[in-house]
């Protein structure tokens, strides 16, 4: 795995927030390497800094110390022009532009290039719309008229419109019913394989985690306490891992892992 090209390299990252004269350290010497083609899940308790980690990758936060390198460039360069062709981000609540129809939302990054003809842009957006499993009739709906699952799909289509090699997911199945969550997981899995994406996912949901991840990184105590396959991580003695994987839901998690290893 480690011989493959690294898409993301985090080296001794410190994230510090200042508020009312008090410094809150979120990450302390956090290092992580993500290779091309991986589907890495970041798990951790509430407030452990998972979302801050994603924001660091997107260049929305600045490291207090250390370096974050994404696709060979410093993460602070992510938000510049052309960012959509480097990284796609699926926000937790979709973050669709409420004033635009679904099709216009998906086509937005392509339209911003200003050169491509309108027909081509619409066709390309329609392909992405169908690729994420939306009906053609959804194209002209407004985001307010969509169900939670459809919002996630439309937002995913928008994240993928420029075919970025790296996709970031923030709680992709949060707020979906188990059926929709399973369907969305299946979609993510097939897209990951088909489009040859590198995916970084933050999730709380154990089912999603075990169904999708090729590797899991556990954030606790301000750094990565364990990383590896589900089985490797679950064997670690760290109290958070014990509580998360072997707590109340342990039975179910073990059953799932058993199933997936049989299927694999």
């Amino acid at each position: 795995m480690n011989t493959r090209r690294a898409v993301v390299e985090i080296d001794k990252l410190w994230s510090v927030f200042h508020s009312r004269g008090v410094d809150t350290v979120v990450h302390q010497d956090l290092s992580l390497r993500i290779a091309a083609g991986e589907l890495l899940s970041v798990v951790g308790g509430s407030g452990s800094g998972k979302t801050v980690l994603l924001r660091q990758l997107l260049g929305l936060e600045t490291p207090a110390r250390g370096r974050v390198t994404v696709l060979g460039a410093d993460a602070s360069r992510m938000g510049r022009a052309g960012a959509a062709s480097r990284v796609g981000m699926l926000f937790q609540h979709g973050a669709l532009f409420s004033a635009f129809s679904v099709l216009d939302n998906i086509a937005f990054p392509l339209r911003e290039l200003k050169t491509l003809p309108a027909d081509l842009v619409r066709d390309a957006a329609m392909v992405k719309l169908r690729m994420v499993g939306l009906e053609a009739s959804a194209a002209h709906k407004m985001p307010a008229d969509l169900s939670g699952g459809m919002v996630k799909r439309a937002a995913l289509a928008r994240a993928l419109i420029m075919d970025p090699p790296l996709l970031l997911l923030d709680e992709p199945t949060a707020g979906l019913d188990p059926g929709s969550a399973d369907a969305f997981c299946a979609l993510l899995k097939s897209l990951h394989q088909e489009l040859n994406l590198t995916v970084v996912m933050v999730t709380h949901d154990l089912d999603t985690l075990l169904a999708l991840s090729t590797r899991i990184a556990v954030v606790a105590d301000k750094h990565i306490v364990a990383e590896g396959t589900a089985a490797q991580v679950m064997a670690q003695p760290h109290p958070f891992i014990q509580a998360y994987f072997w707590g109340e839901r342990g039975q179910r998690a073990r059953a799932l892992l058993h199933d997936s290893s049989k299927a694999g």
Partner: protein
Amino acid sequence: MPEATPTLTLHTRPTGRCAVLGGCWSAARLADPGQWSKISQTLVLAGSSRGVQWDLLALTRLDHTGAQLLWNTWGRQWPMQLQVNPAQQAMLQRVARFSGAELRLAPMSIGQRFLKLGEQLWLLWDHLLGLLALTGQLLLDLLALVRSPRCGPWRDMSGHLYRIGATALPVTALVGFMIGIVLAYLMSRQLRQFGADTFIVNILGIGLIRELGPMLAAILIAGRSGSAITAQIGVMRVTEELDAMRVMGIAQGYRLVLPRALACAVAMPLISVWTTLAALLGGMLAADAVLGVTPAYFFATLPRAVEIGNLWLALGKSMVFGVLIALVGCHYGLRVKPNTESLGQGTTASVVTSITVVLLVDALFAVVFKNVGI
């Protein structure tokens, strides 16, 4: 790693004409204006001639947009001769599979446009009914407040009083002062022609106290607080706070509309008086400078020139303006739909409507009370 610029060249080989693609055919690279004009021209040429061989093997990258471009050039069917590697094949197949006729929205027919016009009229009617209902609800809430004043939303009201009234004092004073100066200067030129310099007191007194003071204050408050009321309530709709209130059984009229309307009703006459005072001060100083009408004379003449009825009229009018501004602001705020565009439209409509309503009602006052104070 810099990606190669996309290229497209037409060769003539012994087997026939051949289109050779090279470089990176991704959306970002294709959209480069210099490249795009070249490639689109060659594509039209290659697409129009039949039996062209397509060679994609030299491509470093092909993304969905590039594949879509090719697919559209091919007339949405596979070309006769195509050389691709498996990854490109998969990409093109995906585009072919998901490409299809888009459901276009049919343009509006003349009949539909006509009906749309009627819809606009109904909308106006709907707004009127909504405002009426809001006013009725406000009266009922007032009644409830009078019956049990201890349970009134007094904390909310005092907050709004501060925000609508106290924080508006500097801007209203400034505007009033300036208008007073301008008015006195303009009038002085005309009055001097007739030698009627001393009538500046009458003109400023009646004009500012009866009309301009309340109007200026109302227009400023409509722009300042009317928009704030709409935006505040509108964001509560967007963040589902309004739904939360309803679920908890908290009456929106009593907790949102009543405190704002009361605060406006109390603050508006006070601001109106404040603005008028500032304008009179400006006018007095300007009159002193231009016409030599001393402040002492100004103070002595003002009570004789302006009947006390004018002041009562101005106060009453301002109170009505205040209630109307709050009602219109609340009305549009409560009608905001949970999206950003609707919030912007609602706020704009609120300010425009409240200023219009204030002007209309002012004209009504002028007609009805034409015998008062003059």
